[in-house]
């Protein structure tokens, strides 16, 4: 019960090697004249793993607000993923050196552009930094508070901490709901400051929740295959995959609603965004985005046997990991790089960031016992009925 995650030195060394590969990939971009690709990759990967961490925390908040019993034994996994937030903050600071390369509203022509001049009260570096710092401080504070309370619960037991976690989770979903409206606007939508869509943030919010819960499932399954969580059964797996199935529909809905309204309205200011992405080169990624993120999980997990099978679920999550990358690539690269470019810089930096994220998660998982022994619903989670 008090088993901690043990990670071998050699695995950590491999991860460190991958992190170095990532750094090299980014530097290669800077020194070979592909500055735009390096900045775009940094933004993409930073946003990717930030949304995974926030999605995981949102998933956990929902478990405590609904007082779900089945997930009680797994809460350490999202808690470990959330420790990445502090690192995300540090890594995001690098992007502030690239603001002029990324954002056209800081470019030379911005002062003569009446649309951009009109948007200056919101889109300026000072206000952007203030929003950035405030959001990150709120997220990190709430995340570490929830995590600390959960660790204290392990020590002292009782219902006090359970109730406090529930209260903090309620605060967190309000904070995230409001801050994550502005965050994708600031960092993704303002890459094309002339274009706007009111559904943009909702889609990225759903995407964060979607891919965050998918990665929680992947970590749980991998740990189970390594011998941890021996009680994991098909009941748990079905509960996990219900989240992915439900969110795949939600994601597809948001994608389609945004696209249909713009397609139907056919206003040049709005269609410019999709026009760029439907050109040769970007078109294949644009079309595959919805197939990977919606159609495949939707049809695959509809099959009840697949929704309870560890291998099938690992494949689904693997596809979704690529899916979120494609989604963010479609948001960032056409705007920043203007031509399709997938090479060492993009793949290498993603591998580096993924290794860093894995490193943080396993480091944080190996510090404390994997199962929260004083969680009031632990018994229910351990004795979930097999299906």
């Amino acid at each position, binding site marked *: 019960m008090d088993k901690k995650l043990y990670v071998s030195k050699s695995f950590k060394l491999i991860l460190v090697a991958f992190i170095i590969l990532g750094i090299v990939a980014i530097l290669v971009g800077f020194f070979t004249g592909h500055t735009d690709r390096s900045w775009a990759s940094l933004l993409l990967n930073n946003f990717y793993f930030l949304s995974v961490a926030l999605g995981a925390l949102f998933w956990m908040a929902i478990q405590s607000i609904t007082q779900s019993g089945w997930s009680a034994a797994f809460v350490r996994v999202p808690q470990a993923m959330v420790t990445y937030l502090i690192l995300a903050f540090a890594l995001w600071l690098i992007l502030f050196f690239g603001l002029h390369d990324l954002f056209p509203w800081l470019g030379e022509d911005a002062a003569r552009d009446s649309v951009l001049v009109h948007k200056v009260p919101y889109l300026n570096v000072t206000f952007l930094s203030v929003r950035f710092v405030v959001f990150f401080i709120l997220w990190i504070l709430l995340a570490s508070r929830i995590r600390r309370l959960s660790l204290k619960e392990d020590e002292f037991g009782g219902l006090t901490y359970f109730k406090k976690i529930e209260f903090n989770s309620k605060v967190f979903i309000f904070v995230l709901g409001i801050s994550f409206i502005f965050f994708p606007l600031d960092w993704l939508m303002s890459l094309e400051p002339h274009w706007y869509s009111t559904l943009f943030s909702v889609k990225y919010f759903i995407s964060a929740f979607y891919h965050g819960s998918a990665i929680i499932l992947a970590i749980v399954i991998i740990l189970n295959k390594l011998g941890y969580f021996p009680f994991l059964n098909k009941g748990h797996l079905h509960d996990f995959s219900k989240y992915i199935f439900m969110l795949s529909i939600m994601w597809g809905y948001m994608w*389609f609603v945004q696209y*249909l309204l713009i397609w*139907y309205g*056919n206003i040049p200011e709005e269609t410019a965004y999709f026009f760029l992405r439907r050109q040769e080169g970007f078109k294949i990624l644009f079309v595959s985005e919805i197939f990977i993120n919606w159609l495949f999980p939707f049809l695959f997990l509809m099959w*009840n046997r697949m929704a309870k099978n560890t291998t099938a679920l690992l494949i689904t999550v693997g596809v979704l990991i690529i899916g979120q990358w494609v989604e963010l690539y479609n948001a960032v690269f056409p705007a920043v790089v203007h031509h399709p470019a997938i090479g060492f810089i993009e793949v290498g930096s993603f591998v580096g960031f993924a290794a860093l994220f894995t490193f943080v998660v396993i480091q944080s998982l190996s510090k404390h016992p994997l199962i929260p022994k004083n969680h009031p619903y632990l018994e229910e989670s351990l004795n979930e*009925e097999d*299906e």
Partner: protein
Amino acid sequence: MKANNHILGVFDDPDAATTAVEQLVKNKIAIKDVFSPFPLEHVWKKLKMKTRIPYLTFTYGALGTASVYGFLYWSSVINYPLIFGGKPTNSLSFVVVMFVLTILSGVIFTLLTYLVREKLWPGKQVNLPDPRTMDDKFVIVIEKNKNMDEALTKKIDDLLKNSGAVEVNES
């Protein structure tokens, strides 16, 4: 139900009813039906009951999508191709209609299938082993067959009583 052909175990408590079902399944005694005011998930699983209705729902949904698309295509591309707003006649906005009518056909035909299979219709006289299952009682129905002797009947009665049945009736 024919008279004196069934053993009815009446329970106050859903957990007791679940235990009784578990015991009966363990002793390989066939349970004909379980009546309850609300769905008991564990009983459903213990009885290993299977349903094929999700496959039918999927079929109805898929047929609904296809036929709605067929109709939209026929009406606005073949029969009356009216161009408005510069949109193609085979339009993306079909998806909304298809989405909604897929759900509609899935739901309505599943409901109809269920009513036909369960032989239910509006105004049908209910046939309950014990009218109190509509209120707060849980009833397990076991059919008495020819090779059920006194000893086995006694055993079933004891089993039901021991698991917490408030009454064991015959009907």
